[in-house]
């Protein structure tokens, strides 16, 4: 019986209050006691708590007795709002029948409001629009209700108005879920089909698969079968999130829960796979997910070469929780053995970087992010190149193509001019504009991906006082006049610092890069020459003069210990530098391209 089950997710633009709303729902239904309550309780990762941002979707079950006096089992999935994690949202949507669309009463409709809404509509979900943060003095609930109403084609009065922070009107959302969201299809008797919509790794129980059962049911004693991998498995445990993992004996159709698979690698239990029962298998899997395509690529190298295998292990573990992370071994002349990893965006990359450093305690060096190029050779073969150093000789190339994106920028109408200026400076092409709501304009452009991965979002925010928001999708590959910008250190090309740039930008980018590198590279025991070259010409050079003084001051009354401590500190700093040949290069230098800024 599924009549009393409801599955929904909360979707919104970043920071509109999804996780805070989830807190209130958990409290209201008693899924979590006052004592256990912390702000954004579902954001369990250290990094999520620190940044106040949801990175990973999480599922939780609650029980709610509605006005009709019936008790409902409600499964909630909280999703991330950041554009890089749109893919997480799309997966969550497939596990639900309804979506609560949260819109900040002070910000109104923003880019991911629309992007996530369209995804939810496409997945055929019932939408419950909610305006949040009505407690704020700057809230414009009437205006936003109007906008949201017209967007969804419903009366503004149908839009709920809440304050997640204060708990105001939150019960209305639960009622709306019970009355408006349809129950899942009842198919307990059919052969088991459960969709793995997410997973995380537990060092004791192996890969924990988050599942939504569409048909059939299973018990903790059943032997289960995975369609994609063909593997069979006897679960270590099955259960529900409440919000911690709580073992149960049976999960029935329409329900959301988890299976502790005991698998040690993610390849054995992929997100998007369908689980069935080995003894009575379903004929066909459920439609899975498109694997997300990584957008940006960067090299990851251990600062200490001995950490290479630890780094591999860290990446493996991270992938268990984050299927959108891809990586493969890569060797750099300068940096030695490492990996080339693909990310959904720069924010995703930053998150991975921080997690490697913190959760695995590894000092790693990330090279500047690059997009994936298609290189057509004179002999008409095509290569894909996601590492600038690998761009073949200019003489052998017919053309270089780069990924173009369509972007939608939603902004108050006042910022039209500054945005137009920003986008065209970065080779963007204006396509059209729309007015999704009064006072809001949506500007559609086409722009090379390489132009938006670095600083674009920050620039956009600063030019629009934080009001503009952005969404993007891949469009197509287009050829352009692209060339390799190479950096030479003491005459040797440093592969990890190479970049692919537009011919038009090579000169000033090269110059700015050299200036930056001169600032960043510490003085060493000998002069270090840094040069930028493009199209076979040196376009900029600088000299980091040898250090002349590095001594300690007076030794105070025979305090050798203190001198030693200072030296130990200096040594620690040195360890964070990467030896490239004879030259010590700090990590920042590899990201220098990102710090060039405009002008």
């Amino acid at each position, binding site marked *: 019986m599924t009549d009393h089950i409801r599955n929904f997710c909360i979707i919104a633009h970043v920071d509109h209050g999804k996780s805070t709303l989830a807190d209130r729902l958990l409290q209201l239904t008693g899924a979590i006691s006052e004592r256990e309550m912390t702000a954004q309780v579902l954001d369990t990762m250290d990094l999520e708590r620190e940044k106040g941002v949801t990175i990973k979707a999480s599922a939780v079950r609650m029980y709610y007795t509605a006005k009709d006096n019936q008790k409902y089992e409600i499964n909630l999935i909280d999703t991330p709002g950041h554009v890089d994690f749109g893919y997480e949202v799309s997966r969550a949507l497939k596990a639900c029948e309804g979506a609560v669309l949260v819109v900040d009463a002070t910000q109104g409709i923003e880019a991911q409001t629309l992007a996530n809404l369209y995804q939810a509509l496409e997945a055929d979900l019932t939408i419950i629009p909610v305006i949040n943060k009505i407690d704020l003095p700057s809230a414009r609930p009437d205006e936003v209700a109007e906008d949201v109403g017209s967007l969804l084609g419903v009366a503004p009065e149908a839009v709920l108005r809440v304050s997640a922070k204060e708990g105001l009107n939150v019960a209305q959302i639960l009622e709306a879920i019970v009355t408006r969201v349809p129950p899942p299809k009842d198919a307990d008797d059919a052969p088991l089909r459960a969709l793995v919509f997410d997973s995380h790794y537990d060092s004791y129980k192996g890969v924990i698969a988050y599942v939504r059962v569409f048909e059939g049911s299973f018990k903790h004693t059943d032997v289960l079968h995975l369609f994609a991998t063909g593997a069979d498995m006897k679960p270590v445990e099955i259960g529900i999130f409440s919000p911690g993992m709580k073992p149960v004996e049976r999960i029935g159709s329409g329900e959301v829960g988890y299976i502790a698979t005991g698998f040690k690698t993610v390849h054995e239990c992929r997100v998007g796979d369908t689980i069935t029962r080995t003894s009575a298998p379903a004929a066909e899997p459920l439609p899975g997910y498109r694997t997300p395509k990584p957008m940006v690529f960067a090299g990851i190298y251990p600062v200490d070469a001995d950490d290479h295998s630890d780094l591999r292990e860290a990446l493996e573990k991270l992938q268990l929780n984050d299927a959108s992370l891809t990586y493969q071994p890569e060797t750099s002349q300068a940096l030695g053995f490492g990996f080339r990893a693909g990310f959904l965006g720069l924010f995703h990359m930053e998150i991975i970087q921080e997690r490697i450093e913190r959760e695995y305690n590894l000092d790693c060096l990330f090279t500047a992010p690059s997009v994936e190029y298609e290189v057509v050779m004179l002999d008409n073969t095509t290569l894909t190149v996601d590492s600038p150093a690998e761009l073949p000789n200019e003489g052998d190339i017919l053309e270089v193509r780069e990924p173009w994106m369509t972007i939608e920028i939603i902004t108050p109408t006042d910022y039209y001019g500054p945005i137009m200026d920003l986008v065209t400076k970065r080779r963007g092409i204006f396509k059209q504009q729309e007015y999704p709501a009064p006072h809001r304009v949506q500007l559609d452009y086409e722009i090379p991906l390489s132009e938006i991965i670095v600083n674009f979002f920050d620039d956009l925010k600063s030019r629009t006082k934080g009001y503009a928001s952005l969404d993007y999708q891949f469009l197509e590959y287009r050829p352009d006049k692209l060339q390799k910008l190479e950096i030479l250190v003491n005459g040797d090309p440093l592969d990890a610092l190479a970049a692919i740039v537009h011919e038009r930008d090579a000169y000033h980018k090269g110059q700015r890069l050299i200036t930056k590198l001169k600032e960043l590279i510490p003085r060493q025991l000998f002069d270090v020459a840094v040069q930028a070259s493009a199209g076979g010409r040196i376009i900029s050079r600088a000299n980091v003069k040898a250090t*002349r*003084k590095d*001594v300690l001051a*007076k030794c*105070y009354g025979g305090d050798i210990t203190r001198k030693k401590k200072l*030296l130990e500190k200096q040594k620690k700093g040195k360890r964070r530098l990467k030896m490239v040949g004879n030259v010590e290069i700090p990590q920042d230098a590899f990201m220098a391209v990102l710090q060039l800024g405009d002008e």
Partner: protein
Amino acid sequence: MTPDTSIYLHIPFCAHRCAYCDFNTYAGQGDSIPAYVDALIKEINFGAAARPSAHATIGTIFFGGGTPSLLSAPQLASIMDALRAAFTFSSNLEATIEANPGTTSPEFLHQIRAAGINRISFGVQSANPEELHMLERVHDFFDVIQSVKWARQAGLDNLNLDVIYGLPEQTLQTWQTSLQRILDLHPEHISAYALTLEHGTPFGRWSARGMLPLPDPDLAAEMYEWASETLEANGYKQYEISNWAKEVKGQKSKVRPSTFDLQPWAPAFACKHNLQYWRGLPYLAFGAGAHGYAGGYRYSNVLRIKTYIDRLTANSQQPGTAFPLTPAAVNYHRLSKREEMQEAMLTGLRLVREGVSDAAFRRRFGIGIEDAFPKEVDELLRLGLLAWNHVSTDSRLRLMWHARLVSNQVFVRFVE
């Protein structure tokens, strides 16, 4: 033959705290001096009572600070008496006191000389009035001239002057003038230190806020190099990264730099107490915040004056701690063999002419330097920062002359 032991006594009082100073010293606590001297004598007796029976004689004594010359001559004499009663002095004892110019009267100097103190070190720092003012030193160069004269008259014939280079807004020219004026006073010994900005000092704070122009490291390097040449040309031999001393007493004539020799020795007027540190030989520590090295331990005492006095008054009984620790000790660390070897390199290489003797290293640790640090030594030889100096039966590993100023690059390789 066991080598002599040294004794360091810390006197943590100053009339005023200088703007760059982060030493363990206190201004405005002069009232505690009598009680402090009593406590210090108690600690000396603790230390002496606890020492192994056949303990070595005392080769050097050093009153450091702070400003030891803030103690009265009778107070200093009573400390010297306590030391003499508790330990056996070597016949050619070197006993140094640090003093601030302008704090030492002729009588005081005579009395401390009579008490057995035979070396004095003045913190001159600069001869330039503006620089002295910026450092918040309370003396002027006239005080220096006066103090040196009186010290000579009192029979203190072993004299050191401290100078600092790399000051904010210091120019090569003001530095040259300062050093020249110091040379004119013919001290036996000169210490030249680079200014370092320490956290928690006014200098540290000002520079963090961008209110103090950072001393330019290239300019500081030029100052050092100029000083090094000038001092050598004036008959001062460099024996340590920041220390120069005369070979012959009273030498005034200039020596041509062509006689530059790099024989591995220390000049006659090298500070023996200093050498004790760099050669890894033992020294006992007395006084608040004093650091010692003996019996395989590095140890240090409580920092605060009041706590120090309390600890020694409370513990009238023999404490449970073993030599070299006294009731004032708060930190102590028994060095592992590896640490002893690392420190032998860190300290020994500071002696730019003497270096680290491979034979001595072998005698002490049972293996040669290159066995203990194969990778490090190989790399440093390759980088041209270290070189072997072969003399008859011994080989000494030494800093290359040009590496003195970048010596941290060498030393970091010998720490973990």
